[in-house]
């Protein structure tokens, strides 16, 4: 605290001090925003490449290679933002076929109601209507508490939580029981972190319903085309 009153007014009046301070703040803001923007631009291609590699690895986890023989990564259609799936951007949906017959769909979905925001999911849905498997592609759940939705962080290595959805369809678990046990449904949750489990369970149920209802349309669209829900 220097003594501001003793400084002659004509050299540094209150207005002048205010303008000078604001200018300094502006310069700091510009410099550090530029630093962030520059880093973002420099790292964006690398980040995008590793995100893509991760997605491919994840597809391998939900969809066994034995179930299809087509060029999966080239047989995609684009799904525009869809409320049921929870996706806000256009995403790619991959179609797996075996000997020309529809085998499975690989879908991206998301739950907006995770404990710390959005949980991204990747699901493989068999043409017969069963969910092959679900994996969490991105999340911000509390480490050590809600992050068991990622099987790599799950303490139960032999039977990770997320594998309980595997090979289930609405034939074996009715649509209205596709919830966590705490909500009167079929699926387990871990004590202390129900919100994460509930978000993943509900979102996977919604995505499974979405895919089974539109199955034929999704498989029959020409590759690389756009799927958009016709407005009612």
């Amino acid at each position, binding site marked *: 605290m220097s003594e501001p009153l003793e400084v002659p007014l004509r050299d540094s009046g209150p207005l002048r001090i205010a303008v000078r*301070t604001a200018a300094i703040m502006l310069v700091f803001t510009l410099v550090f925003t530029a630093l962030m923007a520059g880093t973002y631009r420099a790292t964006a291609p690398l980040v995008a490449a590793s995100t893509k590699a991760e997605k491919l690895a994840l597809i391998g986890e939900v969809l066994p290679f034995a179930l299809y023989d087509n060029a999966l990564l080239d047989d995609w259609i684009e799904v525009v933002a869809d409320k049921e799936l929870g996706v806000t951007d256009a995403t790619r949906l991959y179609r797996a076929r075996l000997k020309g017959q529809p085998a499975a769909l690989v879908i991206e979905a998301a739950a907006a109601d995770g404990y710390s925001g959005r949980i991204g999911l990747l699901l493989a849905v068999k043409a017969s209507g069963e969910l092959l498997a679900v994996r969490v592609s991105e999340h911000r759940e509390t480490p050590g*508490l809600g992050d068991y939705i990622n099987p790599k962080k799950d*303490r139960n290595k032999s039977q990770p939580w997320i594998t309980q959805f595997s090979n289930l369809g609405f034939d074996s678990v009715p649509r209205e029981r596709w919830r966590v046990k705490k909500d009167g449904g079929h699926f387990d949750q871990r004590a202390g972190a129900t919100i994460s489990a509930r978000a993943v369970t509900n979102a996977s149920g919604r995505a499974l319903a979405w895919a089974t209802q539109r199955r034929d349309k999704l498989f029959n669209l020409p590759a690389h085309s756009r799927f958009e829900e016709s407005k009612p």
Partner: protein
Amino acid sequence: MSAYKEIAWNGIWKQNTILVQVLGLCPLLAVSTNFVNAVSLGLATVVVMLLSNLAISALRALIPYEIRIPVFILIIAALVTVIDLAFNAFLHDLYLVLGIFIPLIVTNCIVLARVEAFAAKNGLRASTLDGIAMGAGFVWVIGLFGAVRELIGQGTLFSGIEMIFPTLSGIQIFPADYPGFLIAMLPPGAFFVLGLLIACRNWLDARANQRLRDRRSHGQPSAATSVAT
């Protein structure tokens, strides 16, 4: 030289961020559910504290006193963002494990507290050392925290270490049918452990002071105990 020693001692014990200043509880309580997560967060925090202390000590002559706090926050947030992006781009495997902790560091008031209390008033070398020492104090306490909560909560130690060192694996300390003790994993358990650790530290300090007093000749006025309250 002894000035540097004092900075180190302050960070690790005397002014320990958690046990004495009781700062940074938000990430502490949330993440210290097991040893590996706790130490991971701690190490990421050391990097941020080191860099933010360095940056602000270097720029301190340019920052007007009246707007220092917004400028500090701006610099810290920018540094954390840059570290997050750089980690993601260049150390992607490690990012998959540690990445989730980096944005949490912004919520840690230790970083701002050290910048304001130390780096804004001291030179580059001392500020860097202060960042490392305060960070080291954070790491050992949060690591101990994680170990205690993991052991009581799930009966294991070092679970999840295979994500960092694929050849290692966690150790089951209690029998495999140990049912776990959920409250240790939840925030209330964290507060219990925090209370116990602070009590232990105060007891150790009080005992050290008592010994010091006993060693001095009787009748001499003793220095006030420096037990934190």
